[in-house]
């Protein structure tokens, strides 16, 4: 059922920019239209490109935002979240804690 919903009406998660739009709903309480426009502006893409896996794979790779296939040397996991926080200009709780717990 999760797959059916994801295909019928989802943004595709890491395949698109679903996780990034979700972060704006969670961090700033934005409704879907505002959240999509905010992310599109930050990524310098159009709103319609946010769900395009071909375009978003390139954009995410270039900006180090994490992709489905974690090739060697590409930002992944917490590394990608450091970049997401910077690109979207938001605080990410675990990134903040990571900085506090390390000598960064």
């Amino acid at each position, binding site marked *: *059922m999760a797959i059916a919903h994801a295909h*019928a*009406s989802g943004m595709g*998660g890491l395949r698109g920019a679903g*996780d990034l739009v979700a972060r704006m709903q969670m961090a700033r309480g934005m409704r879907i239209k505002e959240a999509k426009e905010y992310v599109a502006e930050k990524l310098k893409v159009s709103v319609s490109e946010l769900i395009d896996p071909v375009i978003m794979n390139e954009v995410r790779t270039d900006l180090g935002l994490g992709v489905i296939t974690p090739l060697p040397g590409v930002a992944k996991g917490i590394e990608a*979240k450091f970049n*997401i926080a910077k690109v979207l200009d938001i605080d990410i709780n*675990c990134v903040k804690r990571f900085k506090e717990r390390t000598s960064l």
Partner: protein
Amino acid sequence: MGKYFSRMGDGSPIEVTEKEIMADLVTGSEDAADRGKIAPMTKEEYDYLLDVFCMKNKFVSVEQGNEVIMSYDAGTLKIRRVGVNVDRIQALQIYEKLLGADTMELCHVDYSFKPIKPIAGFEQPILEQALLSTQIPLFYGAMPNLGLYSQPDGPFPNPSELLPQGNIKEAQESYEAAIEDSVKDIVYAGTLMYESGADGINLDTTGAAGDADFLAALLATEKLKEKYPDICIEMGMAGEFILGMHSELTYKGERLAGMFPHKQVKMAEEAGVTIFGPVANTNTSKSAAWNLARATTFMKACCEVANIPIHPNMGMGVGGVTVNDQPPVDIVSRSSKAMVEICRLDGL
């Protein structure tokens, strides 16, 4: 007149005419309108839903550009429930990399805040490790579940025994005491998970034990927001209607018993909830068309008054989805499309 494949609310297949579908759409919407004192769907919306049910495709989807965010309750639990033998971090990775999830939730099989309390110290390192190796926003979730606070599972007299005996006041006092303990447990576990780095806390199946359960979740949200103004709280409801098990509880001057989604969301906003997950229950003896029209009527009214993102529950038995263990994609995808496009949802 041609016949179309559809289903009943229990998932069983049926064949129906256009006229029968439309009749069910109208009565389903009017049922919600009558119960919730809200507007039924418009003629354009009935026509749109009729088109959705008459599509010959097995699977349908929203139009490009109308996509929304997916959030999940009991996420890691569902992988274990179907017997896939992976641990919870692997389950999160499966959702992130294989199932197209936009967000995910870590949870324990004993999915309630009370039993989480004594094992929170074992949950935190799992959460912290998951946060290192995943990228999508990660909630920690559980239920307020006030049922666990009454005897024999908890310390307080059981309202379900007191009420049939006519001991109304004693039952109400028991609920009030349970609220106090439940709020402490939610705030305790929520604090630890947020301190471990969770992106949000999901208070799931809120209101399962009625108005006292809902009030506990609202008060816990207030306290967590006071402590951490930036914390994201998602509140998912248990049912469409707040059962008046106590019946006289109020929040910000409003009686909670009897509230439908469009009123529940205003309480959630007052408490500081970030994302609200309303519910419309599925009636197994009515058709899928009847159930979906009814669900969209409730959710549309909720979305219209909301100032926060709305992610309705669309799992088995809610949001127009049929009541059976393997909901068929024909109805799940039709419900998904119609709910998103009619109600202008932010997610589901």
